[in-house]
């Protein structure tokens, strides 16, 4: 797929390989973004893999997207996971483990017949007191490598009521696209993974 796909949010279209960081305030803002984004993916027949911060949110998103299901390919079209089995599996965060999780998820879906993938992550887990969470920004930078080599769009969700301005700054630096208040801000100067790693080392 070379054309744009509808994001499902505020008439915004995305190119395959887009890694978008979205800022919102509160649960209602998150639900609006996630239900639109996943709903559009489900309607298009994409494989949707999503990580949310709690069981309650998982049920809410499941409910909000129930009527949006596409033709399907034999397996579950929408997978919703919690941080305990993904970002913080084993009690700590490691970038490589998480990148493997996404990659394997897409490969498995490809075997099931899906040709396009839609990934989403609620990043509130990074505020927990767990080993490795300080590598959040590095992970976001590394994720750009995955998105550039798969038919996928990725949405990372940051709650402005919880994350500081410093995180916002660093997230913007590492994301090629940022969604703020219905505006998609392009950042052609985002730090590529290698650049970010060099920048972080200095």
């Amino acid at each position, binding site marked *: 797929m070379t054309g744009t796909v509808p994001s499902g949010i505020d008439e915004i279209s995305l190119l395959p390989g887009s890694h978008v960081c979205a800022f919102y305030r509160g649960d209602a803002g998150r639900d609006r973004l996630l239900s639109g984004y996943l709903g559009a993916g489900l309607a298009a027949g994409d494989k949707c893999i999503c990580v949310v911060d709690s069981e309650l949110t998982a049920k809410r998103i499941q409910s909000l997207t129930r009527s949006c299901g596409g033709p399907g390919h034999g397996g579950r079209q929408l997978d919703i996971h919690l941080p305990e089995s993904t970002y913080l599996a084993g009690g700590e965060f490691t970038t490589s483990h998480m990148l493997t999780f996404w990659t394997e998820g897409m490969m498995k879906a490809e075997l099931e017949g899906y040709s396009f993938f839609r990934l989403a992550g609620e990043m509130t887990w990074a505020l927990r007191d767990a080993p490795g969470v300080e590598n959040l920004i590095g992970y976001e930078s590394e994720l750009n490598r995955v998105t550039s080599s798969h038919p996928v769009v990725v949405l990372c969700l940051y709650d402005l009521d919880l994350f*500081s301005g*410093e*995180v*916002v700054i*660093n997230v913007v630096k590492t994301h090629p696209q940022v969604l703020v*208040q219905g505006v998609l801000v392009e*950042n052609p*100067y985002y*730090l590529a993974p290698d650049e970010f790693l*060099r920048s972080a080392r200095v």
Partner: protein
Amino acid sequence: MTAEPVTPGGVAAGPAGPAAVTDENLRQRLGEFRALLVISLLMTESVSEDQILDLAASSAPGLGPWRIDGYSLTDGQWRPGTGRPYSPPSGLAGRLAALGGGGGKVELSGRAWAWAFPLRGTGGPLGHLVASSDREPSAEERFGIQVIAQQTGVAVSNARLHARERASAAELAAANAALAETVANLRRTMDIHDRLTRVAVSGEGQPGIARALHELTGMPVAIEDRYGNLSAWAGPGQPDPYPKESFAKREHLLRRLMREGKPAREGERLTALASPRSDVIGVLALIDPGRSAGSADLVALEHAATVLSMELARLRGIADTELRLRRDLVHDLLSGTDDESALIRAEALDYDLRRPHQAVLVEGKGRARAYDALLHAVRRALRQARQTGLCETWSGQVAVVTAGQADWDQVCRLVVSDLGGQCHIGVGGPCARPSELPRSLHEAALALRLQKTLLHGSGVCEYPKLGIFRMLAGISDLTDVNAFVREWLGHLIDYDARRKAELVHTLTQYLEHGGNYDATAAELSVHKSTLKYRLQRIRELTGLELNDPDVHFNLQLATRAWGTLQALYDKP
């Protein structure tokens, strides 16, 4: 913008070489400006001043090796940056005041560099953003701080504007809500007013008022008189028999309602007083066991009480007018009036004066002498005796204009039973026309006086049944009657006049009681020997033998004529 070979951390570039580092630094600077743009967008969309200031302060570490120590706002408030001490650095306020609306260097303890950047909004200066660093920041870094300060000022200004608009909108919404409530209340009050006004003018009376109040409130309604008797009821659950509270409890309630001047709760009832004047009282009650009556119900109750007051005043006015008309009619009938006028006025009072009528006079002694009390007692007695008539006070007595035969002895007994003391009743002869009633009244007065002169104790004297008395009273020229009395009783009359004695009265009673000593003595309340002495004195003064039938007849006729003359001359 000048690209510096120094990262925000002030450390030289990494292993990619000088050319690559320079390019990366440039990209990093451009990326930071994108990040600043995002921060600006986020601050602009925020409507909370605290959120904006927190976001700006927490962004600083991501933009360079500097921090925001706090904000000094024009209202004198010091707002610390994220994680900064709450108190403003000492001496800072004076320095910022000297800077006015501009920016400049400030001194902060332990900081190599500190600067106050002006916060400007659309309405003018908002204060200063105070930033500091452990080293002198580069030109790009200073530019970044300046951008943050500028965007913070604009965002705070917008937030305040929004806050004012929200406050205005909230005030407007509150004013609209209050206005809507007022309009709704007014509409409800007007509905209440309309409904009850319709009742007031439609002549539906007290049942109509109760019905309207029940319809307006949905609650059962009772209207009672001042004694607690039910006058009207509307709605379900009317008690049968209707309960009546004690006199003391009723008086207590009435005093409370008068004192408070507004409806009062009394157990399950919400009561209001309707009292157009002190002697006219009605009580309106909403039966509200659930205590659910609201302000609208209270308004309806008060309004209904006003309408009830008008109704009670109207009823009392009618009663007063009717009473006055009756009194005037009785006076005119007894004083003398033409038949046509009397009949028309009686008809207006719904009284049939075309039947034969008679005048009756009632006089009381003892407690029965209180005129008003006697009038009411006579009215009650007539009602109990099922006798219709027009009653009014008349020269210390009560005059009754009545039709048909009545048991006047029963009326007399009822009055005495009611008031105690004594009661005398004189009944005049019947009249075919109203204009004859003065004659009947004259006869009633004569009968009353004869009753008092010749008879003793309570009693009734009916003129048509007076026999010889009536015949004597009917003689127009009393000269011969006077001469006859003087012939037979002249000595005794003169003796009584000289000695203040009662020989004529003693002789009268002796003859009226058929010569019975015991009955006569009892009637005169004297001892039998006194009676015998008086009779002996009579024999000596007159020289007459009382046992002689001819003498006996003439003396009895003379004493009756004497009594009749006394009554005619009104000399008891």
